[in-house]
């Protein structure tokens, strides 16, 4: 393979990995605060729709991203209310939330977009970022904005979690809610904030899927990517740096699935399309799962 092929492949991997990265960060943020965010798939789907609608109706993809963030906040509020404050079972809530969001997004899409018009949003790129940024954006052109954001977030979260004071507090809520509570932290507030943040990140994953990749919406377009993000967190041992490589690996699976077909071996393409999922399973089988934050999944009840 020539260099050109590799560069193209690398970009495709980054494209595929970006939504995964956002989702995985969204899961990580929550699990580090002791909440299993199974609903990230639903947040992602909602974010994907909101991003497209926002971008189409305002004409500005950056406002589409803003719409996705708002939707993520909304999803986070619902999830936080359910799993932090009530608190209901986190896994069951997440799965039900995902189902609802498939229905609601398809429904809203059909209601708002009647008639024969197809929704194509403008793509998100550096061009729309504004003139004064131009000297900067020209250099960054090769990396899409949301990918860059994801990379920055990965590094940011890594630093924040493991070398700052707030990071220590954040982790302690996930490790031992009791200890955090005794140290004067409001566990419920931290967890709901984490869930808000996690859902926003999930929604950004949806925006990356649409505005950053193909700027349109189709029913249930996330196709389990949120769950791959979830697996990436486990695979990455709840550390942003390792998680990043896990996302790259799964992204590579997706990018490779098509490239394998293009090699022209004549094999049924579905065998290649199984690749991302089989790769994820194989990764889990080989590496296994480490222990996550001790209190992840356990509801915290204040007397």
């Amino acid at each position, binding site marked *: 393979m020539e260099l050109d092929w590799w560069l193209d492949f690398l970009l495709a991997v980054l494209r595929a990995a970006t939504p995964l990265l956002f989702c995985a960060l969204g899961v990580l943020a929550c699990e580090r605060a002791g909440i299993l965010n199974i609903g990230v798939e639903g947040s992602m789907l909602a974010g994907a729709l909101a991003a497209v609608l926002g971008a189409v109706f305002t004409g500005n993809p950056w406002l589409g991203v803003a719409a996705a963030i708002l939707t993520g906040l909304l999803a986070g509020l619902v999830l936080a209310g359910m799993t932090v404050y009530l608190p209901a079972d986190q896994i069951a809530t997440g799965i039900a939330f995902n189902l609802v969001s498939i229905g609601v997004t398809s429904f809203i899409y059909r209601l708002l977009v009647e008639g024969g018009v197809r929704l194509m949003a403008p793509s998100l790129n550096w061009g729309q970022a504004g003139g004064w940024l131009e000297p900067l954006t020209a250099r960054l052109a090769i990396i899409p904005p949301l990918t860059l954001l994801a990379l920055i977030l990965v590094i940011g979260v890594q630093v924040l979690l493991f070398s*700052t004071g707030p990071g*220590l507090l954040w982790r*302690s809520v996930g*490790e*031992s809610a009791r*200890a955090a509570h*005794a140290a004067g*932290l409001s566990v419920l507030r931290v967890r709901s904030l984490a869930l808000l943040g996690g859902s926003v990140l999930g929604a950004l994953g949806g925006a990356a899927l649409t505005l950053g990749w193909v700027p349109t919406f189709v029913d249930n377009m996330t196709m389990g990517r949120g769950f791959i993000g979830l697996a990436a967190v486990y695979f990455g041992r709840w550390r942003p740096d390792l998680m990043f490589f896990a996302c790259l690996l799964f992204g590579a699976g997706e990018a490779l699935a098509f490239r394998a077909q293009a090699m022209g071996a004549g094999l049924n393409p579905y065998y290649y399309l199984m690749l991302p999922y089989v790769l994820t399973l194989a990764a889990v089988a080989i590496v296994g799962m480490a222990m996550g934050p001790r209190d992840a999944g356990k509801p915290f009840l204040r*007397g």
Partner: protein
Amino acid sequence: MPINLNPISDTAVAVQMEGICKSFGPVKALDSVSLTVEPGEIRALVGENGAGKTTLMTVLYGMLRPDRGQLRIAGREVGRDWSPKRAMSAGIGMIHQHFSLVPNHTVLENVLMPQLRWTRLRPEWARHRKTVQGLSEQYGFALPLDGQVGAISVGQQQQVEILKMLYQGASFLIMDEPTAVLTPQQTDALLALLGRLRAQGHTVVLITHKLAEAFAAADNITVLRRGKLITTVPCEHTTPQAVAGAMVERDWSGDVDLRLPERETSWRLEVKDLVVGEDHRQLEVDGVSLAIGPREIVGVAGVAGNGQTELAEALVGLRIARAGTVVLAGQDLSAWSIARRLQSGLRYIPENRHLNGMVADLTLAENLILDRSESPPFSARGVLNRRAMGRAAAETIADYDVRTPSPDVPMSHLSGGNQQRVVVARALASRPRVVIACQPTRGLDISATAYIRKRLVQCASEGAAILLFSSEIEELIQLCHRMLVMYRGRVVGELDASNFDTAIIGLMMSGQVAS
């Protein structure tokens, strides 16, 4: 360089609690309790289990909101938003019986945690480290600041808790049963530390049910009973006997009808050179040998975490022993499954019923026969006999005085004491040959404790061999023919009922004397 943190006496707080009420379901945990603590005193809060000592202090610390009542700190009433955070900034710190430490974080991180602010991205680690180091030395702690809390000893963990409170500038320290996990020597050191804290102007509330400690350390003693405050007296004006009288409702003597059966000379359970643990770590059980005969109760004493749990679990089959043999009535059961051990008459009362003693979602009747469900009369050819289950449940409910609306309610609907009765009933039913009993009376009230002790003795006199693990030395002294003391996974001492001596036991528990 000793660092004197702050001139405490200026900021020392007086605490006034008035008419505090708190209920959990139908249980009144606190019934209009009023308590005043003056700055610079050591106050012992004594009472039986369930008297409301801990509840009262968690209200003070802001972890529980009282149903009624007022709380005044330094003369000012606190608002509805009273929380641990506010309590701490008012100089109140609480050390819980179960430590509030994050095991995966280092000592330093745990000590610093309450100081950290969300807005402060970069705490001055270096400055903090220096101060903490100094403080640690000032109080004579030898703590590895960068070691993980999960890896240090329980005594050290407690020091971390105290350090954490002091470092926050707490001048009012609440300690909930701080000696429960300590050896007698560590206990003495802790009590001495309390004196030093008072000397520096701190106020301490010591929750305990051990009167000796209260009298050794406190200025004043407050007695709680069943959620009510009975009395507060200065130590010098009272006697342990008087306080004990106030603690229990009626005159009650635990050993009325506890007559130990004559033990037989043969062996029922023989354990040889049992080893539990993983290669790269300290062995949890390091070559333990013991033997129990029929109609005999053998106690195992030791500070928590010295291998007792692991030994018990290895005997029951919950852990795989690396080496050694366990012989029950001549049969080596080392390689047997738990089910097979149960079939051959080995029974187990786990130390934590919530962890592995019962299934909260299953009904009382189902829990009661869970370990015998495959044998008659409870099932035939894989189908449950619900009538037999009901009968067994009814008998247990009557025999053990279990308070429940019906045998078909989930265990989660029962109170803790009633749950424990069911757990014990299950282990002692159907004539066990060997019982491994771990902390069978932990957390129970007086009458339940007495009842369960009686059943254990009765079970022994019916021919069972009982290995009793307990953290209450009095319980062991009362119930056992012989006592083994464990330290760091080994049996370091064996005593006969004739020469039980708390002081010697204490020394053995701390590994300083071997018999």
